[in-house]
């Protein structure tokens, strides 16, 4: 008998990702992942000053504003012709700002969102607060290990605080930093800032080495069946991210990236990535069919909420028409396959503990392990980036001390004293990596205004609905075929969804107390 179950992981704030599974004989036959809120923020940007994209796109999301800041700055660099002129300090500080957000986000994901699917906090401390509500799962970790993990949960809050502090040393504020701008970053490095950053970073690194990675391994040992669950589409895509100066990346003078771009198949075959191969389908999305199959550089956002067959406000991004998975797993495997020695060492050191081959990483536990290892990779790399900073030297393209009389900003000021012309017309693309996967911004400028702006978020790829060829999205594929023991408590599916670290719930968080005021609020 087939039953339909719905996991509506609506945050109490107002969630936007709903997952539906049709279960037949205890196995998922069909899965639907739906973004239930229209997110057409691109529409707001049309007709605005191109520079506003850098400020406004950060506001799309409360979880990855830093990645949107980076992508929009790269996009504007491209459109303004500044791409090759960002000084080394600027590149490094951008990486340090984005890196701080990676560390924060990954630690948040494991300890404050995912761990409670595996760790019985109630058994350990007798009290769920401040832990998020959960499904009752099968908890297999011993009581001592439970207590240890709960301690780390609290420590992780403090570590995340330190990540935010690091980010704001160079970014000015968190959330929605104001440091990353076209042409580089606003803040010059000083010895004081570097020191302030480094002592926090070292504490975070110690936590990653001594708590985060061992805890993920402890969970993996207790739940080793989850190396078999949630395999997914097995095509891993990265745009590449963390643009480094040449001397650090060991590549030609254009510089290289910490995360290499590429597409890796289930057989671990690697092909180069080219952004022109990205298209977005909308057959099953609430957008006009005329939008379908377009590259984001030519993309449109025309909502059509009553469309038949559609079940999501997410479009279906595809690479050469194929479904892809993005995120830490994609990045670690791409670097591994492309021969990155550091990544190979990290990944192999974990695989050997399980006597496993790299293909076990295509799984729920593989995604958690990749995320933990990536945290270490980024944190350790950040030390090197800090050391490469040149104190008191510029971090932004040729600053101009005095633009016109009195230092008044003119139309030609791109950001803090950087002069460049906003082109009459032009195009730009900014592709980078966010904690939960690759993110891209595309813009077209006409009459010095934004004519078109398109954003593809990582969750759009991972949680996409079926495409024009009816191929299910990455998350949908990961759920199909999964055995569900108890349809009233489908923790297997929750664990699969969570391992992707989906992010759609952040754009609105209106407080809602209708019908439930309890006399606490009074009208002023």
């Amino acid at each position, binding site marked *: 008998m087939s039953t339909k179950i719905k996991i509506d992981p609506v945050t109490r*704030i107002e969630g936007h990702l709903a997952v539906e599974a049709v279960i037949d004989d205890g196995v998922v036959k069909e899965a639907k992942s739906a973004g239930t809120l229209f997110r057409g923020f691109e*529409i707001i940007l049309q007709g605005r000053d191109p520079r506003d994209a850098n400020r406004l796109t950060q506001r799309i999301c409360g979880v990855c504003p830093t990645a949107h800041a980076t992508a929009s700055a790269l996009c504007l660099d491209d459109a303004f012709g500044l791409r090759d002129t960002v000084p080394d300090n600027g590149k490094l500080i951008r990486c340090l700002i984005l890196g701080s957000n990676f560390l924060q986000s990954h630690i948040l994901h494991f300890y404050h969102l995912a761990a409670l699917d595996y760790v019985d906090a109630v058994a350990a401390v007798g009290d769920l607060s401040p832990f998020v509500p959960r499904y009752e799962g099968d908890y297999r970790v011993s009581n001592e290990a439970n207590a240890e993990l709960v301690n780390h949960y609290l420590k992780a809050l403090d570590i995340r605080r330190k990540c935010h502090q690091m980010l704001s040393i160079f970014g000015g504020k968190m959330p929605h930093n104001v440091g990353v701008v076209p042409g580089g970053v606003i803040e010059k490095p000083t010895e004081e800032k570097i020191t302030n950053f480094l002592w926090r970073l070292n504490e975070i690194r110690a936590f990653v080495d001594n708590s985060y990675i061992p805890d993920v391994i402890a969970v993996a040992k207790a739940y080793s069946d989850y190396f078999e669950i949630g395999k997914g589409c097995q095509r891993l895509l990265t745009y590449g991210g963390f643009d480094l100066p040449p001397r650090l990346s060991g590549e030609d003078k254009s510089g290289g990236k910490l995360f290499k771009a590429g597409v890796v198949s289930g057989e671990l075959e690697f092909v180069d990535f080219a952004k022109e191969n990205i298209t977005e389908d909308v057959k099953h999305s609430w957008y006009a069919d005329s939008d379908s199959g377009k590259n984001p550089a030519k993309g449109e956002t025309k909502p059509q909420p009553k469309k038949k067959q559609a079940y999501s406000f997410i479009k279906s991004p595809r690479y050469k028409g194929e479904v892809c998975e993005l995120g830490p797993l994609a990045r670690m495997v791409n670097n591994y396959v492309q021969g990155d020695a550091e990544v190979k060492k990290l990944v192999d050191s974990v695989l050997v503990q399980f006597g496993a081959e790299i293909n076990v990483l295509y799984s729920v536990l593989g995604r958690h392990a990749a995320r933990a290892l990536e945290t270490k990779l980024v944190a350790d790399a950040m030390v090197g980036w800090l050391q490469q900073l040149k104190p008191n030297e510029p971090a932004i393209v040729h600053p101009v001390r005095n633009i016109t009389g009195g230092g008044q900003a003119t139309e030609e000021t791109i950001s803090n004293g950087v002069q460049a012309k906003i082109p009459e017309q032009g195009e730009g693309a900014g592709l980078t990596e966010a904690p939960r996967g690759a993110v891209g911004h595309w813009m077209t400028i006409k009459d010095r205004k934004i004519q078109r702006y398109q954003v593809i978020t990582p969750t759009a790829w991972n949680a996409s609905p079926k495409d024009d060829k009816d191929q299910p999205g990455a998350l949908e594929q990961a759920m199909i075929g999964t055995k569900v023991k108890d349809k009233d408590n489908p923790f297997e599916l929750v664990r699969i969804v969570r391992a992707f670290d989906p992010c759609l719930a952040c754009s609105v968080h209106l407080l809602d107390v209708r019908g439930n005021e309890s006399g606490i609020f009074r009208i002023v």
Partner: protein
Amino acid sequence: MLDTRYSMLDTRQACSSKQRALEILVLGLGNILLKDEGIGVHIAQKLQRVALPYNVEVIDGGTAGFDVLLSAQDVKRLVVIDALRAGKESGTIYKARLKIEECDKLEQIFSGGSKISLHQTGLIDALAASRKMNGALEEIVIIGVEPESTDLGLELTEQVKQKVPEIINIALKEIEDAVHRK
């Protein structure tokens, strides 16, 4: 181009290495891309242009505001400003004042009945976490504003915009009370 001149004043201090106890932290929450949903941020950005004592902090928490609670050092009093739907006329201003030990009440009124939060820490979770983290927190004030519209758009609606001076006054009164209460 948007005016962002003041934004560098922001959480630098909240996130700086200086350890200091704040008498009061005013946290404006919301999404400025969705009209009245951004009221908390609009208010915070205006308050940041006011010269305030050293032991007062105003933060534009934007869409990640709850996370800011983690970054804030020891804070005695927290004021959250946000859009709040309670069903009254648009622009209605609501206020709740809770001792830290009464925070559980918030749990009751904000319980959306959902079993699971896939992402983003909610206000209640953040408060619970900050209670464990932040021993100094004594009182929370929530200032809510009934939105007229939360559609796409950078501007506040007229009904909410005309309440801005009043909301600022309420926030300033809170700040004044907190600073002078000793």
